[in-house]
């Protein structure tokens, strides 16, 4: 029987980490890191885990220590947020290219400046090209479930890539919600133990990790890394299927909410999906055929599946909680639109940058987006593709 509890997002992730009982957690113990290492260090102090907890002096060191321990053969996890993630930047790429399946919980908060500590997606969106798998979570339950699945996804021998589990700062990280936890032994059985093929502490076959790799071989190593990301698509779905058998909760590349006969739809990530679903329900009551897609897997990007999922719409809005400053749409929009070129070329598509720096996103804001979509569906015309939703002007 599942265990009913009420936990904040940070607590939920820390509990998942306790149940996973990783070999090493190396984390920066104060802000801009999160409460996750704080809660977890309590489990360490109480003897609830076997983990070696390394409180490091910076986020750069946190990821460096994670790379060291994962190379040595230890299952390794950490957590961070915002500028902490930014300070990890250099090492994120090294973790991914060294094919080290570290699991990192990212509490999505705005990158300064101007200085801001509240929720948007500029931190993890900036890391989207670092070679990490990225899973996004609507609420505490999904954060908990995704952290558990992330271990299996990253460590799969066809993948061997690090995984970021991203959830919204404060909205999810600090809000206490009802949650269904799994029994400790169920989680332990699900994640199993970590058996990398090669690792530094394997005495019989010594290896070198992270050597200089120049023109003759670097290119081939990158191609191999790309293959790991491609392979992860199947693994993500397989792990989700197995997880569903155990936990009863269903996961895929994205969630489709009332999309079957939808004419107008929006694409969102993370907690805004919760707000938007109530708007969809209200609109459906009024006879508007509204639908919603919530992306769970942003890296690898499910081009074909997502492109096909929106192909029946009369108008689509893509919501970006960060601006990539391409001067033409945020990062989610650019990838969605690229997918649509192959699978939904004729669907008019509009982009909204919204909620930056923790600006509240209310049901009214989302309702306005659907109202705009109604007009676009009617006329087939998008007046302005790139918009800031609700900014004062």
């Amino acid at each position: 029987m599942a265990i009913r509890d009420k936990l904040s997002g940070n607590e939920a992730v820390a509990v998942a980490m306790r149940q996973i009982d990783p070999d090493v957690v190396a984390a920066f113990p104060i802000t801009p890191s999160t409460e996750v290492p704080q809660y977890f260090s309590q489990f360490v102090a109480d003897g609830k885990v076997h983990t070696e907890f390394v409180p490091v002096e910076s986020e750069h060191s946190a990821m460096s220590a994670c790379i060291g321990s994962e190379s040595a053969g230890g299952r390794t996890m950490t957590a961070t947020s915002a500028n902490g993630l930014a300070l990890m930047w250099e090492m994120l790429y090294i973790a991914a290219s060294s094919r080290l399946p570290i699991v990192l919980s990212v509490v999505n908060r705005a990158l300064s400046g101007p200085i801001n500590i509240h929720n948007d997606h500029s931190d993890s969106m900036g890391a989207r090209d670092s070679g990490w798998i990225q899973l996004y979570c609507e609420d505490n339950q999904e954060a908990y479930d995704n952290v558990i699945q992330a271990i299996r996804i990253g460590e799969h021998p066809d993948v061997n890539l690090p995984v970021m589990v991203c959830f919204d700062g404060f909205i999810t990280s600090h809000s206490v919600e009802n949650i269904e936890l799994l029994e400790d032994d169920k989680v332990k059985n699900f994640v199993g133990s970590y058996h990398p093929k090669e690792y530094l502490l394997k005495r019989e076959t010594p290896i070198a990790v992270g050597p200089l790799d120049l023109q003759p071989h670097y290119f081939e190593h990158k191609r191999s890394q790309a293959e790991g990301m491609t392979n992860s698509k199947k693994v993500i779905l397989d792990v989700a299927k197995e997880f569903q058998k155990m936990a009863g909760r269903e996961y895929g590349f994205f969630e489709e909410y009332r999309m079957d006969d939808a004419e107008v739809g929006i694409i969102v990530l993370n907690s805004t999906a919760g707000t938007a679903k109530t708007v969809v329900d209200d609109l459906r009551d009024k006879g508007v055929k509204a639908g919603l897609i919530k992306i769970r897997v942003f890296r690898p990007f499910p081009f074909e599946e997502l492109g096909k999922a929106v192909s029946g719409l009369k108008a689509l809005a893509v919501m970006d909680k960060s601006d990539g400053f391409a001067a033409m749409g945020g990062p989610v929009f650019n990838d969605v639109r690229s997918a649509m070129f192959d699978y939904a070329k004729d669907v008019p598509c509009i982009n909204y940058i919204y909620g930056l720096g923790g600006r509240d996103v209310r049901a009214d804001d989302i309702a306005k987006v659907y109202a705009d979509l109604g007009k676009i569906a009617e006329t087939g015309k998008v007046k302005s593709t790139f918009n800031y939703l609700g900014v004062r002007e």
Partner: protein
Amino acid sequence: MSDKKRRFVFTPESTWEEMPEGGLILDAGNADDFLTGDWRNIKPIWHEDKCKQCMLCYPVCPDSSIEVEDGKMTGIDYDHCKGCGVCAHACKFGAIDMVDEAE
């Protein structure tokens, strides 16, 4: 190339499918397989007649290119010597000269 047993031998023809993932090197000492002698601009010439077998050059060579057998220097490994000249600097007896590689 070394006669040591290798788990993977990197060559300029190695494909991405066969190479170890993540840039791992699976064999200790595989630097032996990479012939770095062609990086050299200046070349050490060993004069056996002036050599006192003092072994001052041997430990300073960063590329393990001073060849030694039974405690005695026997020559220089030009496949790996990068021509840094540290050996010539360390030699107190003028037994190693650095000359232009082109000569």
